[in-house]
């Protein structure tokens, strides 16, 4: 299994351990992540303005690259996943965005949203299979009550992202189970951590993050996992239990050493 890999900026800086652990674990599971050359920042935020083309271009370039390579485009970061998938949806469904973008990029063949955007968790779930992951586990995460934290970007808007049921997601719970852990199902796992609002008003992010952490703890969590560097940034400040990227516990369970920031 070979994927075109779109790491995104944060995974190459503040969240390098997310990147390293993801690549190493994939290798152990028989999947190769081939980083695409000269990828550009996805922008971090999906542009809601429907006539905004410039901010969609980096995503389209990456998507088109994967299309030309005949591979799926894999991401690990929820924010990149959200942006890539949303832009891809536009390229498939909005004639206006598609024609403007293509007339700017002047590709030989029009890009029409053909590429499949895959989140690392989707790769584990749909392509490799949690059962196969489970078989490779050498250090089961026994006696650890782990609260998966989804946040918004990987789930919503569900019609476009379609990762899981946005209100009652189960993917990360099943992932934890595959690693031998005990998932904590708590209602705030799909609440927003405050996201980018932290740049404007720290109090919002603090309020939201504390709520989520308290909720997870109240439901018995010893640890939380996330798939988003921004969620990590917000939650980490207020958490008194460990918060890890989901790929870190994957490496632990698979018995792989993976360091990084």
């Amino acid at each position, binding site marked *: 299994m070979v994927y075109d890999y779109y790491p995104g900026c944060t995974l190459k800086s503040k969240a390098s351990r997310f990147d390293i652990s993801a690549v190493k674990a994939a290798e152990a599971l028989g999947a190769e992540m081939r980083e695409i050359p000269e990828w550009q920042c996805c922008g971090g935020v999906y542009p809601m303005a429907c006539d905004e083309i410039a901010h969609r271009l980096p995503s389209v370039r990456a998507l088109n690259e994967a299309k030309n390579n005949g591979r799926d485009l894999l991401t690990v970061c929820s924010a990149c996943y959200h942006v890539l998938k949303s832009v891809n949806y536009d390229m498939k469904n909005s004639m206006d965005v598609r024609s403007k973008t293509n007339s700017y990029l002047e590709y030989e063949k029009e890009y029409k949203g053909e590429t499949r955007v895959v989140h690392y968790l989707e790769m584990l779930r749909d392509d490799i299979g949690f059962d196969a992951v489970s078989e490779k586990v050498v250090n089961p995460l026994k006696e650890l009550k782990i609260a998966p934290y989804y946040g918004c970007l990987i789930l919503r808007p569900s019609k476009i992202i379609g990762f899981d*049921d946005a209100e*009652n997601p189960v993917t990360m719970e099943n992932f934890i189970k595959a690693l031998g852990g005990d998932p904590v199902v708590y209602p705030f796992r799909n609440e927003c951590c405050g996201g980018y609002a932290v740049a404007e008003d720290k109090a919002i992010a603090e309020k939201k993050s504390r709520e989520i952490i308290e909720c997870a703890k109240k439901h018995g969590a010893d640890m939380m996992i996330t798939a988003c560097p921004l969620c990590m940034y917000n939650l980490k400040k207020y958490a008194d239990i460990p918060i890890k990227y989901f790929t870190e516990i994957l490496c632990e369970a698979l018995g792989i050493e993976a360091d990084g920031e």
Partner: protein
Amino acid sequence: MNRIGVFVCHCGSNIAAAVDVKQVAEALGREQNVVFSAEYQYMCSENGQKLIKNAVKENALTGIVVCSCSPRMHEATFRKTASEAGINPYMVEIANIREQCSWVHKDITAATSKAIILGRAAIAKVRFNEPLTVGESGVTKRALVIGGGIAGIQTALDIADAGYKVDIVEKKPTIGGKMAQLDKTFPTLDCAACILTPKMVEAARHENIKLYTYSEVEEVKGYVGNFSVKIRKKARYVRENLCSGCGACALKCPSRNSGNEFNTGLDKRGAIYIPFAQAIPNIPVIDAEHCIKFRTGKCGLCQMNCAAQAIDFSQKDEIIEEKYGAIVAATGFDIINLDKFGEYGYKTYPDVVTSLEFERIMNAAGPTKGHLERPSDGRQPKTLVFVQCVGSRDTSGRGKEYCSKICCMYTAKHAMLTREKYPDTDVYVFYIDVRAPGKNFDEFYRRAAEQYGVHYIKGMVGKIYDDGNGNLMVRGSDIIANEQLTIKADMVILAAAAKPDDSARSLGTMLTASMDTNDFFTEAHPKLRPVESPTAGVFLSGFCQGPKDIPETVAQAGAAAVKVIGLLSKDRLKSNPCVARSDSLICSGCSNCEKVCPFGAITYADARVNDGTGMETRRVAVVNEAVCHGCGACAAACPSGAMDLMGFTSKQIFAEVDAVCR
């Protein structure tokens, strides 16, 4: 030889202001075969019609072209005029120079030349018109009402009272429908059962009404006045003629695993059961899926305890065939499944219930004997939160885009009744808008908010969750205060969107009655024919046509009955002669027409034809003229040109096109 008269109408200034009518009359007067041409102020008036009649007589006209308003307005008028003047009414053509010309154009020169072109097209067409005769068919003086809720019962009673026979087919073991499950009714708060059950009894006892409960319509054939219907009477495993309705069987039944449908599954019933105390007929039914006898072969306690020896495990479904003149769809509604609305936790938390469940909880005959007790622990809730528009007015694709119409009022009712019976409760209602546009409705809602102290919060609920201590938390927005708020609730009641009953879709197919994307039956005209389906002889009663409360349902039920009575009162039905006709010499039997016909009017039959090379038997299309609506879809689909629409033959249409393009 064609002798055509042209009559150009001024329609006061409606046409004359934008079209030079004199010029039109003169120009059309010069057309081939036109022997008379005139203009007049109001052609539809007595004098205008007299002008036409005189012209027909004096000029021995064979065809008439009226340049006037849309044929939808006065085609019938002018056909009658022609008939009175002694020529076939179908020798009249209308050139619409009002709606399609004078009303939409300002430039008088351009509008005048367009009017002339439209007139020419009509003249070209009328040259090929053929006299058509109206056909006739008989009427079976019996009506079928599908659905035994308040809509069906009311329609049946009104038809029966007028002296006609009516059959009600109800899929459940009892009539009564959703209304039987309700506690009180808004805005008068009278008890639903108290006003419904007398009607149920009346329907059961009426000499003109026959009930087929626990039955479903399986096949509908025929056409207006002459439907033939197959009804499947499902096996109750209880002989109706022997059963006394004592209920001993239901008491003795050891199986207690089936959710009691009447109480929305809030309690259990036996495998043999009578749905509720006032059920009609008061005859039990065996739910074979849960019956121990059916599952294991052992038991039969009900049979042993039946003094009337009415239990019959060997009973089979029965197919009844009956003929009807008219059919009324009264299939009612249901509430949507809330699986897709995870944010409300309906499946997760037992104390989050639907309004229909709450209705049963508040009902004296319900699972809690009318005491407000929450499902999880039977405690009386102190804080209740009602959430409106759960799946209604929904654009997320999970629910329904329309307003379910009844929820604002029943929520106000629930809130008010709760506060009245339990003054120590706190009641909140989350709403998008409160829609109370009925008689005494707004007063009712205001009473709830102002006199009963129900807290109305404008905003939606985003999440219902357990705070980790077993408390139900309701998080929503208050968009007037512009804040997010969280209410610790003991019970949450969701006003789930109402939708047409699932049986409507298959029934619609059987009846070839059109439906909208939400599976509501479509009316023949949204304003002027609200209780008739576009399919002749099919009428609509109640929620199956669109969201309605009880008073509206009863009104519509009565209106549908009037239409049925009007139909059944006729001995013969006149049919529209502008129907499709197939030329068996040309027909290749390809079935294209049959596939596109929305009314099921086309069948195939073997015909003996002589195409010049000798007699042979061929499979050809046959149009049932009584069923055909004259839509023309078949004529357009026919690859060989065998199918033609009378009054709109291909020849006529091409002549019109040629005239327009000349």
